[in-house]
């Protein structure tokens, strides 16, 4: 099924997206939104473009909201060919996602096989030499206010051969909702194929200790967000309480990395890269020959010599909407790297005078405050001449009712003069026809708030904004739980205490068709990612998480004592942690779960065992009713789900909930302790196991 979206007026390239007609997934590819050139190739015949494909699913709780695929395509052909045809400035090479198969999570929370992407330019398939996959915003729902991060692995399947872990990178942190992630960039240079498939897998644990695994049907699942939380091993704290800090700034275009002091000077903007004022994509610098001036010809012979060796000049060009600095009347530059004229705010001196005046006022106020020694408990005082009760306060602090004259004498800037003249509406507006394409949109105006030009040709390119890398710290002990590499190109982490590596993974293997009041079999697969044997017990949902909490508290106390003694962090440095009110979990379970009587033991992870087919079992005394299958550190258990009778409405998915208790060995804190600590961690899990099939 092919869908064609026409470009919107915002110079969005036309795109064609075909998708597999899959009723269950109902994956909708929304329009290909932007296409922006990445760093332009300096080599002669290659030209790079970046395409952004936005993949959105419209099922409730789909796994990926956005997947931005930026693929840099090099074309052997000349630039014009791949870029656009001259007659139709809006015709762009089309990115079509030829196959989005499954887009599905095979089971449980792992998402795999995202699809295949082909780049089609002018009807021809362009071989892809390099793929960049940038995940910028994977949205999650049901994670409101939580600290969630993402841990994911990428693998590329090229022509059927899977290059696993081409980059196994993973990502990040986000204190509120996984709104945006730093990019995960997979770059493969040796791929010569027109079809590239990639997959992403990850899993998630809610920070409040709740797995939020929502599965909307048997084959397809989405919803569980690819995510995880970081875990602070010092306080065994699934870090609902961590905060983000800005680590380093970099330009997303030229990848320049600057220290924060310099960034502040440059107002968070890259001095070399510019955004198109029309469509907000990155502008590229183009070289051209200086046009010969008519005046030069009429003058003396020296000028003729100059003409003999034409000078190279540079101008800015947007390869998406074809805006160029020449159209806007910006003079060409003789150096490629800059010197572009900056638009000055005409009010700078005036505003600086006002700032100086206000500083004088502030210093007067400070002096008077000190003199009068205002009652210290009134630290937020609606005081003095800038607030409502200022007359009162002025009297109170012993100032005259009128503001002191001295401030007006020295620093007072020329007061603004009001005038009766206002901008009259020109009478032309009633007669002149309007070409709406020459008038800027509000978005374009607000890109440059100082000028807010109304005509398209008055727009000026804006410096590109820096992005940041972030790190995440535990709120309780201020240890870093996640910190990425400083270098902007690197996607590695210096520290990544993702819960992914600590909390057992749960996947839904299969579930029998669900009928109200009848029992259905649910198979769950557990996987132990840690280096220690763990015991998993399934407890009813209403089990209080308090036991684990008290244990956590104990550890916290020990930990603080510990660090005080070992002087890891002086206690004075630490502030009392600010506790945020816990988020209310709104998920309601509408099915009963027959809980098993025995618990499950999972052996530690053994990477070598992956390749060893022989020594499967560790001879655990498993309850055959519970454990169905076991291999290495994984096991599948059988549970029974009985959807509630009341749940007649087939619209709502069936959700079961339980508490998973597992033993966790805290190895990091153990570095300081003599022996590793063992804690029982309890997490609440909600599984969406599917829809009701009906009465029959």
């Amino acid at each position, binding site marked *: 099924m092919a869908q064609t979206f026409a470009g*919107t*007026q915002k110079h969005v390239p036309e795109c064609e997206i075909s998708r597999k007609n899959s009723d269950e997934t109902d994956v909708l590819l929304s329009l290909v939104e932007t296409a922006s050139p990445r760093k332009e190739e300096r080599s002669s015949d290659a030209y790079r473009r970046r395409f952004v494909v936005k993949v959105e699913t419209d099922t409730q709780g789909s796994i990926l909201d956005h997947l931005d695929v930026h693929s840099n395509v090099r074309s052997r052909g000349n630039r014009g060919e791949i870029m656009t045809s001259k007659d139709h400035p809006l015709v762009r090479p089309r990115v079509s996602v030829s196959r989005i198969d499954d887009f599905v999570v095979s089971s449980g929370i792992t998402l795999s096989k995202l699809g295949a992407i082909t780049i089609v330019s002018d009807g021809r398939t362009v071989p892809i030499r390099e793929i960049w996959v940038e995940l910028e915003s994977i949205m*999650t729902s*049901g994670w*409101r*206010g939580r600290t969630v991060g993402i841990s994911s692995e990428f693998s590329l399947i090229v022509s059927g051969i899977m290059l696993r872990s081409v980059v196994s990178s993973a990502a990040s942190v986000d*204190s*509120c909702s996984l*709104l*945006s992630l730093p990019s995960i960039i997979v770059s493969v240079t040796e791929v010569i194929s027109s079809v590239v498939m990639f997959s992403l897998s990850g899993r998630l644990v809610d920070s409040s200790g709740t797995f939020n695994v929502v599965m909307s049907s048997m084959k397809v699942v989405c919803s569980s967000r690819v995510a995880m939380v970081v875990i602070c091993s010092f306080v065994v704290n699934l870090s609902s309480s961590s*905060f*983000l800090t800005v680590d380093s700034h970099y330009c997303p275009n030229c990848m320049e990395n600057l220290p924060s002091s310099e*960034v*502040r*000077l440059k*107002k968070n903007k890259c001095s070399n890269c510019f955004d198109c004022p029309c469509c907000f994509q990155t502008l590229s610098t183009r070289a051209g020959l200086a046009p010969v001036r008519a005046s030069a010809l009429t003058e003396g012979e020296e000028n003729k010599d100059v003409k003999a060796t034409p000078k190279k000049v540079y101008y800015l060009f947007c390869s998406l909407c074809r805006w160029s600095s020449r159209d806007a009347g910006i003079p060409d530059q003789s150096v490629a790297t800059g010197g572009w004229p900056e638009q*000055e*705010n005409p*009010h700078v001196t005036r*505003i*600086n005078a*006002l*700032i100086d005046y*206000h*500083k004088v*006022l*502030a210093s007067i106020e400070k002096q008077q*405050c000190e003199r009068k020694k205002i009652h210290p408990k009134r*630290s*937020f005082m*609606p005081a003095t*001449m*800038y*607030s*409502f*009760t200022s007359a009162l306060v002025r009297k*109170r602090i012993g100032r005259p009712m009128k503001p002191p004259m001295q401030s007006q004498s020295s620093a*007072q*800037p*020329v*007061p*603004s003069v*009001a*005038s*009766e003249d*206002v*901008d*009259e*509406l020109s009478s032309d*507006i*009633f007669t*002149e026809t*309007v070409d709406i394409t020459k008038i*800027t949109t*509000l978005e374009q105006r*607000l890109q440059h*708030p100082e000028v*807010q030009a109304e005509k398209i040709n008055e727009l000026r390119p804006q410096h590109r904004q820096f992005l940041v890398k972030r790190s995440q710290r535990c709120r309780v002990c201020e240890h870093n739980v996640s910190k990425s590499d400083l270098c902007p190109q690197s996607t590695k982490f210096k520290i990544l205490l993702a819960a992914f590596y600590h909390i057992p993974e749960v996947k839904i293997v299969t579930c029998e068709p669900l009928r109200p009041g009848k029992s259905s079999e649910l198979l769950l697969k557990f996987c132990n990612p840690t280096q220690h044997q763990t015991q998993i017990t399934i407890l009813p949902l209403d089990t209080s998480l308090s036991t684990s909490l008290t244990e956590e508290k104990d550890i916290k106390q020990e930990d603080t004592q510990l660090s005080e003694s070992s002087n890891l962090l002086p206690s004075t440095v630490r502030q009392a942690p*600010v506790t945020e009110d816990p988020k*209310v979990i709104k998920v309601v379970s509408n099915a009963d779960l027959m809980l098993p009587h025995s618990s499950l033991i999972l052996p530690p992870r053994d990477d070598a065992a992956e390749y060893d087919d022989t020594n499967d079992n560790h001879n655990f005394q498993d309850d055959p009713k519970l454990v169905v299958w076991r291999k290495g550190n994984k096991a599948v258990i059988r549970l029974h789900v009985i959807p509630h009778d009341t749940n007649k409405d087939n619209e709502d998915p069936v959700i079961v909930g339980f508490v998973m208790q597992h033993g966790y060995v805290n190895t990091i804190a153990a570095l300081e302790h003599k022996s590793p600590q063992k804690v029982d961690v309890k997490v609440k899990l909600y599984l969406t196991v599917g829809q009701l099939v009906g009465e029959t």
Partner: protein
Amino acid sequence: MLRGYEGVRYISDKQMVVFDIGSAYTKFGYAGEVSPRGIIRTEVRCSESKKIRRIIDYKDVEDLYQLLVDFLHLLFFKYVVISPKDARILLLESPLAVTSFRDTLAKVMFKHFEVGSILFLPSHLATISTLGIDTALVLDVGYQEATLIPIFEGIPILKAWQALPLGGQIVHENLKRYFRDTSDLDLSENILEDIKVRTCFVTTLERSAKLGTESALTPPPDVTYPGIKRIAIPGEIRERAFEVLWERDNDNLSLPTMILDAIVKCPLDTRRILAENIILVGGTTMTKGFASRLKSELLALIESDLYKAKLKVESFKFHTAPSKPNYTTWLGGAIFGTTDIPLRCLTKDVYLKTNRVPDWSNLIDNQKDETSYEI
């Protein structure tokens, strides 16, 4: 843009971040700078429904909390790019704004982002910082409503405040109704805003009187709005879109009567001065012809029977701030933010101790301090 030493001026100190969170657009930047770093829509992708939602559409306080967490996260890490922990924030807020919004905002700032301190600054008062004077009648016409507070000698005359639900939103509704009735088009608010900004204007008083009557003058030319489906925008609607701001409602109120009513409520000796120091802020006042129409409406009203007896003001004068009107308030905050008066800030420690934000309308914060009469 920077003076040679200007960059150095604030580099040692942690700069104050200035937010003006409006109902339609949020202006953000650093104190001491001459223009905001950016102006973005006050909307965010809701982490639950995964739809873009405007903050003003919140359902309850809990919902607002979540929206603000998402929105401020976006602001801090994508736009302002600063670590919010221990940052100093200046928030511009209208004294007439909803208390629950302000309380929730403070809660998000302190509890979730752990900012160091917040300075709440009344937006009308901040505006006069851009003028170098201390008396002005500040009319803020934004998206949801128009609010007015006169300020005399640095003191807001609160009893004369005016507020009417006149702003961009009502213009959008007006346009939307028009397109729905005439061509059965249900246009999204964004398209309506675009049509409004790019084609509509405020017509003159003389023409407006004749609109809709037999003697109506030739309407301005029609415009074809490009897109997947072309929309014809007749000249008449271009001219009439903003008329809703000037029509008197059932209580005989409109934008110009707000100004006059406020002046009437002010003490006698301040009236003339206030009428000659009017400043218009807010995005809607940037519409072509807005100021001139307001002036002619005012002059016509003052001669009418309604005000002739009450008000003896002959002329109205308007100030021009060193900025575009839609970020004048922000600029006022940015200028004020350089003063560094820690006494006026609400610090994290105080907030966590008291768990409330001081408010002018709350008696706890507005008690007469007995100590004030000691001297």
